[in-house]
């Protein structure tokens, strides 16, 4: 996390090889990210992006099934294993009631679950989500965050997210990376609180980090 414009999305885009590193190199399983073929990387890393999907008539099932593309043959035929992975992903995200709907009929919260299911079906060690709750109300936001928390526990996957929801992130994540203009902090949430890492995250005139509540609170105006 970090304030707007500090480079959260750039970092995630670089990690997922959507863009080239500005400097340095990224190693994934002791291999330079640049040296992975498209197909190798697609079995290691899946994405949930903020960009809007083109307006097509894909059904929820078809959309999730596209997550199996790295494994399917040239005609995109789904094997029994593919179907099993897809159905597991649908169950884990609790969206089986949406299966046959067109994706454009869904609410933002439902669509986000579908996109997470698609990433799960891709069966990768790492899932990267860019601002997964950007368009959601507070209830949906908490639902998505707790879903992600549950998935980490159940599937033992690494889930990397960028988020503006600082208070939720502090409560729910195992490790946090705080991007400041001058320094980058990466540690468990608990250690970061003890290091007073959050006090300098934003200018203190409007909001302050309350150490006891472990939350940012608005100053009395």
């Amino acid at each position, binding site marked *: 996390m970090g304030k707007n414009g500090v480079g959260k999305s750039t970092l995630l885009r670089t990690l*997922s*090889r*959507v863009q080239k590193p500005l400097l340095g190199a990224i190693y994934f399983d002791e291999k330079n990210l640049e040296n992975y*073929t*498209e*197909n*190798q*990387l*697609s*079995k290691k*890393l*899946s*994405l949930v*992006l903020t*960009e809007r*999907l*083109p*307006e*097509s*008539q*894909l059904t929820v*099932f*078809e*959309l999730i*099934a*596209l*997550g199996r*593309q*790295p494994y*399917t043959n*040239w*005609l*995109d035929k*789904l094997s029994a294993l593919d179907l099993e992975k897809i159905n597991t992903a649908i169950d884990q995200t609790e969206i089986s009631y949406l299966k046959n709907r067109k994706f*454009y009929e869904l609410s933002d919260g439902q669509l986000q679950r579908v996109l997470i299911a698609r990433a799960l079906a*891709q069966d990768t060690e790492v899932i990267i989500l860019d601002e997964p709750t950007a368009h959601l109300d507070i209830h949906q936001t908490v639902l998505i965050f707790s879903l992600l928390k549950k998935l980490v526990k159940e599937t033992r996957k690494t889930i990397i997210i960028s988020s503006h929801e600082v208070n939720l992130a502090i409560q729910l994540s195992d490790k946090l990376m705080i991007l400041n203009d001058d320094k980058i902090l990466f540690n468990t949430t608990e250690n970061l609180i003890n290091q007073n890492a959050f006090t300098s995250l934003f200018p203190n005139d409007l909001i302050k980090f309350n150490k006891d509540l472990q939350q940012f609170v608005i100053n009395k105006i």
Partner: protein
Amino acid sequence: MEQRNYTKYFALLSVLLLILFLINISLGSVTIPFKDIFTILTGGIASKESWETIILNFRLPKAITAILVGSGLSVAGLLMQTLFRNPLAGPFVLGISSGASLGVALFILGSSLFGGFFLTEVFSSWSIPIASSFGAFLVLSAVILASYRVRNTMSILIIGLMFGSLTAAIISVLAYFSPAEQIQQYVFWSFGSLGNLSWNELLIFASVYILALLATLFIIKPLNSFLLGENYAKSLGINIKKSKNIILLITCILTGIITAFAGPIAFIGLAVPHIARLIFTTSNHKTLIPAVVILGAIILLICDTIAQLPANEFTLPINAITSLFGAPIVIWLLLRKKKLYI
């Protein structure tokens, strides 16, 4: 992807295609009894020898051309709409058809400017197809070169449109300086025609068409992944650049060869994919590709049948018919569905 059962639709459409094919063959300036048509088609001997020539050398190649042109343009349109994720894309929008037109215009109209050599010395039935393929290929190369420089597909679309207006302008300039007969010759070509192909030409046309269609089968996977946008497609292990180039190449070959042999035929490429999506309510290319092939063939056969209806003496320009029927269909689709998908 999970397939809903479309067998019924496909069976129905195939029967419709067969019926339209027979109707198309049985109509023309000479009335031939249906019984004789059937005899000729099944290899028997008809009551009149001239009927055999009419059916086998004129109407049959024309009907087959209609099927190839209709389905080929529809596939090209579908590929363009998916690649550019834009429901308005089509073979015309990329400027490929305009490129083909420019090739033909340079050949027919340019002959007076650059000396009569082209027209007098090497004028054969092959010259126009070659000129048009060359023009299409030229614009294709320009568009592909441009696509290396600009990543954004919208920019490529606009570059294609610019090439289109550029070639139209060059054609106007050429026409301004050309004698009336040559302008007339060019205008006749631009009306489009399905009926000028000999069996030899048809054989070449069909071979290229089948190769392009087979190649399309191999890009179903990238096409489906493009439905999620380029970044997702890339994260699914698709080689974006390669897939894009193959899609562009197939489109250009299909459009180039069709424009070469049948002239610039409008609207089919734009309208048929939308009709297919409306009937099959899917965006999955495993269903859409066979669907546009069969619907494109059906629709161009209908257009061609209408084109030769009026007086039975002469036929209307096919390009006018496709636009006359295509434009209202697209407008009606928009009014009814309020939204076009890719």
